[in-house]
């Protein structure tokens, strides 16, 4: 049995666990995967969060991707960060940078086992702020300067690739180089408010090709959270596990303790349980019927007849679900155009699922002239996303090379030496 088959059947504990600490956010990004904005009154308390961390330590979840919302607006964020690290749970957190002043940057630089990911969705203020809101570009850049000056080392810059920024990939790379950071680019998905901005923001078919070509030519040191595996159907397979990790090696704990199969699937249909229930997260992970189903044989539907099926595996579950396509149908961005055809054939009365929750600021929605903010940072809160967030080079291949011990794979949390 190949290693990747074990991944398909699920592991004792997740490899890539995203934990959204709060739905509260100072921004209102138009593509926010968790429709964040307002704090949920039922949010896990500090003590409940620590109990979850204790459990993650017992389960040997080596690190968590913390996101939100904006996790740093929780007043106990720094306390929880220290608590996790002290309990053998490494942390990578995603932030828009709002709280990363010089003092916090210095504090982070002095902390082991923490990785920081700054969200940025435009290499220029114009492009970024259109999606993330006025002033958000300046905030992110200031946070990067602070981390750089504090000698933090290699933090990450996390970009959700959209129709508006796909031409800026080289510029993003230049920004990363300027601050000694690593670039991470992930796929935009129609999750949360992303459903509302999908038609405007998701890359066109020509841009998908452009993105693929860029990844092949320039993507060597760029993290992707394996989120572009649907593009592998263009030809050469992209590095990473070509596998949807939802419920298998990936899952999400949301701010109220609900456990979903993946950060991009905040919907009742993908809700596996709650960490507050008896048995806690461990029981949800091991015994949820939903996860058992996701770990079982999946039907690829008509896609299995496609010669590229091995490469793309039918694409992203969440992208299909939130565009109204069947889970055994093509990805909406299928590079062969099967998704577009399937979308065109949807019956007029097809009900496209809406996110079950909406914590958006009540005052900021509506037609947008110049703003909106927010981030699709699930993957991490990071990142990551749906497919395995094993970040870099295909571990399945590396493992195939030696029957006993797989070559190390760097996780998204990776890289920073220190």
């Amino acid at each position, binding site marked *: *049995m190949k*290693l990747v088959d*074990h991944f398909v*059947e699920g*592991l*004792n*504990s997740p*490899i890539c666990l995203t934990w959204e600490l709060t739905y509260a956010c100072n921004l209102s990004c138009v593509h926010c995967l968790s429709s964040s904005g307002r704090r949920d009154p039922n949010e896990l308390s500090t003590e409940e969060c620590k109990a979850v961390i204790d459990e993650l330590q017992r389960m*040997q979840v*080596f*690190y968590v991707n913390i996101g939100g919302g904006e996790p740093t607006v929780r007043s106990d964020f720094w306390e929880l960060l220290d608590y996790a690290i002290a309990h*053998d749970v*490494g942390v990578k957190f995603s932030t828009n940078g709002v709280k990363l002043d010089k003092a916090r940057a210095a504090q982070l630089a002095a902390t*082991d*086992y923490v*990785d920081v990911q700054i969200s940025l969705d435009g290499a220029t203020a114009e492009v970024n702020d259109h999606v993330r809101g006025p002033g958000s570009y300046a905030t992110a850049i200031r946070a990067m300067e602070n981390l750089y000056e504090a000698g933090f080392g290699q933090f990450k810059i996390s970009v959700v690739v959209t129709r508006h920024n796909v031409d800026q990939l080289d510029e993003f790379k230049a920004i990363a180089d300027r601050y000694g950071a690593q670039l991470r680019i992930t796929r935009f998905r129609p999750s949360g408010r992303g459903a509302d901005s999908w038609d405007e923001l998701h890359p066109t078919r020509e841009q998908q090709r452009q993105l693929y070509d860029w990844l092949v030519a320039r993507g060597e040191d760029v993290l992707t959270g394996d989120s572009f595996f649907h593009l592998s159907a263009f030809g050469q397979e992209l590095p990473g596990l070509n596998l949807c990790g939802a419920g298998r090696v990936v899952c999400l704990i949301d701010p109220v303790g609900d456990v979903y199969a993946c950060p991009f699937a905040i919907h009742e249909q993908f809700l596996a349980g709650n960490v507050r229930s008896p048995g806690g997260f461990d029981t949800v992970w091991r015994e949820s019927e939903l996860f058992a189903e996701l770990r079982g044989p999946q039907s690829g539907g008509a896609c299995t007849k496609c010669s590229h099926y091995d490469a793309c595996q039918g694409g992203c579950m969440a992208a299909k679900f939130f565009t109204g396509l069947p889970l055994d149908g093509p990805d909406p961005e299928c590079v062969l155009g099967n998704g577009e055809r399937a979308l065109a054939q949807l019956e007029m009365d097809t009900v496209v699922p809406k996110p079950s929750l909406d914590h958006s600021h009540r005052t900021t929605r509506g037609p947008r002239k110049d703003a909106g903010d927010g981030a699709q940072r699930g993957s991490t809160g990071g990142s990551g996303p749906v497919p395995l967030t*094993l970040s870099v080079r295909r*571990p399945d291949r590396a*493992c195939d090379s*030696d*029957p*006993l*011990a*797989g*070559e*190390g*794979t*760097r*996780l998204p*949390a*990776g*890289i*920073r*030496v220190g």
Partner: protein
Amino acid sequence: MSTTAAGAGPRATPAGVEHFDADQPYRISGSVSVRPESFGALVYDFHTRRLSFLKTRPLVRVVETLADHPDVHGALEAAEVPAPQRDQYLKALAGLAQAGTIKRRSEGDTP
């Protein structure tokens, strides 16, 4: 333990790679955590953030008991790794040493 069974001696070690010598005592690195899984174990190094896979249970036993033996061969023996497979195991262990997952142990050394 014999050195002849090795096959992971200096000449088999690529340039630039930490020299792995199966006649020496080893231990798991202090920053490394081992998580049992059905196929063997996941190994995570908190320092390098590197995730590795141990794909057989005997290899997990070997890695976890390295510190109890005077050399690597002793750990292989104790884990009852069949002789014909020893070379393969040594190669895997050399890879783990290269990645920093296991380290050579010195006297009085604790992980």
